[in-house]
């Protein structure tokens, strides 16, 4: 670590005409001779739709993750010591119980909240605050954005999406209150501007002026950047340069995507400015999340990989069929194989994101080490809509909170909310209950 004469404040921003850009954690932000890293812990929930081909997900034994992981988890092999595979968690309120059909209508909402999902296709929605928003309510004031909701399908707030369940339940991961979902941002340009544009510091007039001049946000803050660089050591100058380069690359990708006219799939709404191939779309959006975490713009995020019941097709990997219809394979091996391919595609994109997190240095550690990121679903077997034995992968160490690299099998009926309660505890949030939680996950944390 380079010890500089004067520490830079953690929330310093590069400011310019009509723009303000947060900074990543620099060595100079850590007080000299500090006993411990001040890096904050980030929480994120990546939601997988339509369950998983569990035969190719679950490691065969409990304990240390082997070098050779099951097929769908194989993309995580190189970072297996940074992830924890957790088996047997349940989202009980997703089950049919006395209501019956509507498993996709309930799955995501029950998963994130742990409460009964009130069946309505109207405006009288009723759920409760989701786990991420419990954290955001408690800690959100510490960052420019209390939380960041991202999704790879354009949000819908109304309509009947599954047997009388509102689309609001299937398209929204985050719920601020029992009646207020927080729609995910699916347009890359909107996300970029939320992170680096008018939502933070830029006035609407300045924002419009900058866009009219086709000026990069980095150009706007150039003067401030040069001033800051003069006061940084070599290590921090390199970090700052890498960070600004990544922002610029994202900006260019967003610009490129915004000009794309390629249609993704006739059966799916295509948000404006979305890269046509899924992997590119995931990468672009997750890159922005990474920058948001890196620059401490937010510490809490949800990321909807696909809405529950998603019918997205993946022609780029030879799967022209819709995801949801494929998961009702009834044992058809051809359909099952296509489900597996989709599952692997998602996992590959997720693993790439996690690797970037790991490569992002933060003090003496890295961004992944200082995060707890759930990659999971409220359905396990999409064919029969089971809501127990859920596929769950937890990435990161939460700043030394857990010891990853393991497959942990809990007793069945253990609420997935117990995992969320354990994550919240790491950031100092200790609600008496998280939905139907019965406690914390014993054996997951080091303490």
């Amino acid at each position, binding site marked *: 670590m380079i010890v500089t004469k004067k520490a830079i404040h953690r929330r310093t921003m590069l400011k310019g005409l009509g723009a303000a850009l947060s900074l990543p954690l620099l060595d100079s932000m850590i007080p000299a001779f500090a006993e411990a890293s001040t890096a904050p812990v980030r929480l994120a929930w990546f939601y997988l739709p339509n369950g998983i081909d569990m035969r190719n997900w679950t490691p065969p034994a*409990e304990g240390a993750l082997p070098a050779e992981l099951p097929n769908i988890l194989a993309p995580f092999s190189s970072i297996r010591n940074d992830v924890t595979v957790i*088996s*047997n968690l*349940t989202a*009980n*309120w997703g*089950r*049919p*119980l*006395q209501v019956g059909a509507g498993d996709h209508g309930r799955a995501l909402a029950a998963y994130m909240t742990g*409460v009964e999902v009130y069946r309505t296709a109207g405006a009288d929605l009723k759920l409760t605050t989701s786990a991420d928003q419990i954290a955001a309510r408690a800690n959100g004031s510490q960052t420019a954005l209390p939380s960041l909701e991202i999704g790879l399908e354009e949000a819908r707030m109304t309509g009947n999406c599954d047997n009388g369940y509102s689309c609001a339940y299937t398209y929204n991961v985050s719920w601020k209150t029992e009646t207020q979902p927080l729609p995910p941002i699916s347009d890359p340009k909107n996300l970029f501007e939320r992170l680096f544009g008018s939502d933070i510091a830029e006035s609407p007039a300045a924002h419009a002026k900058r866009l009219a001049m086709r000026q990069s946000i980095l150009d706007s803050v150039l003067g401030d950047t040069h001033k800051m660089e003069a006061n940084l050591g070599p290590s921090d100058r390199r970090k700052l340069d890498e960070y600004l380069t990544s922002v610029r690359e994202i900006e260019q990708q967003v610009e490129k995507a915004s000009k794309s006219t390629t249609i993704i799939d006739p059966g799916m709404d295509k948000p404006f400015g979305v890269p046509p191939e899924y992997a590119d779309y995931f990468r672009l959006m997750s890159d922005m999340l990474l920058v948001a975490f890196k620059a401490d713009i937010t510490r809490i995020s949800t990321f909807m990989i696909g809405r529950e019941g998603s019918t997205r097709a993946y022609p780029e990997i030879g799967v022209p069929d819709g995801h949801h219809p494929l998961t009702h394979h009834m044992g058809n091996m051809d359909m099952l194989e296509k489900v597996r391919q989709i599952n692997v595609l998602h996992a590959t994109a997720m693993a790439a994101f996690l690797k970037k997190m790991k490569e992002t240095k933060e003090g003496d550690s890295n961004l992944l080490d200082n995060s707890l990121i759930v990659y999971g679903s409220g359905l396990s*077997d999409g064919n*029969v*809509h*089971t*809501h*127990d*034995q859920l596929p769950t992968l937890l990435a990161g160490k939460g700043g030394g909170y857990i010891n990853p690299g393991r497959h942990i*099998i*809990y*007793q*069945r*009926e*253990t*609420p997935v909310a117990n995992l969320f309660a354990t994550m919240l505890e790491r950031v100092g949030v200790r609600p*008496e*209950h998280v*939905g*139907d*939680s*019965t406690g914390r996950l014993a054996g997951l944390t080091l303490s």
Partner: protein
Amino acid sequence: MADTPIGVVYNTSMTRPDAALALAAMYLGELKRESHMGAVCVVGAGFNAALFCDIIGKMYSFGQKNGNQALAVGLAIEPGVPDSPMVKTAVEHNYPRTLQRVQDTSLPEAVLRNGVIFNTDSVVILSGPATYLAKSLDLQGTKDLYKARVKRLVIVDSPTQDKDAAALRKVIAEWPTPIFFSPKAVGDALLFPGANLDKAFAWAQPHPIVDAYKAYKTMPYDAPLYDLAATHYAVHPDSGFFTLSASGNVVRADDGSMRFVPGSGNVKAIAIDPAKKADLLAALITASTEKPVQPAPPAGRGGRGGSGRGAFGASGGRGVIPQGIPPAIAK
């Protein structure tokens, strides 16, 4: 028979033959659509007791069930708790089972609560230690849930009941719906004829309940039917076989046994109507030993199945052999 089968949540230590017979009666009741198994939770015994319950469930069910249809047997994992000697022979047999390891069992406080959620209306039978039923009362919204959905809680007294007096006191104090107490005398008065055991289960030999019964004590002996009688009352409170006391409370005597004390309190004790004792015993034996029959499709898909009187009444014993019984041992 009720239009909607009532859910049954059974908290047991599965250490006596009457518990095994009660469990069989619960599953037989499900086949007749007079009740529906919500949850079985083993507290106060080891993994083999849970495995035994799983074997019984498998034997008395038709077809595979997923997590939306049946909950895995719960188990309170407590180091040092001895396993039930009664179940050893049965679990060593090659009976079909779904549990392979401790993690295949369900978290006790969660499965007790979720078992109630599984059904519109439920009854809860507390035979094993009350530790986790008490714990479930502290889970968010669960008291309200029990108040809305649990018709009655039946507490069973037996020679091996209750190793957690504090938890039992909490349950009695905080339970939001009617509580009934089945005194030890009820079970003591109803004895299963051990000499007829093999004949009663002749429809499938070997049979895990026969194994357990014979392993419990040197044969022949007649087992008191503590849990089975309480189960009957829980599911069929209007059968006419029982009378009810005025309200009172349940206290623990110095020897560890429970005692009903009339007076203030929210508990009523059940007693056998002496004139109907023989009929009750016959009903209990039939209800717990008859051959499981695959139910007919429900109404709307070929007519409503089940016999007129249900598992605790008389019915025939012909039908398809359940999937859980290997053809080689099914008769």
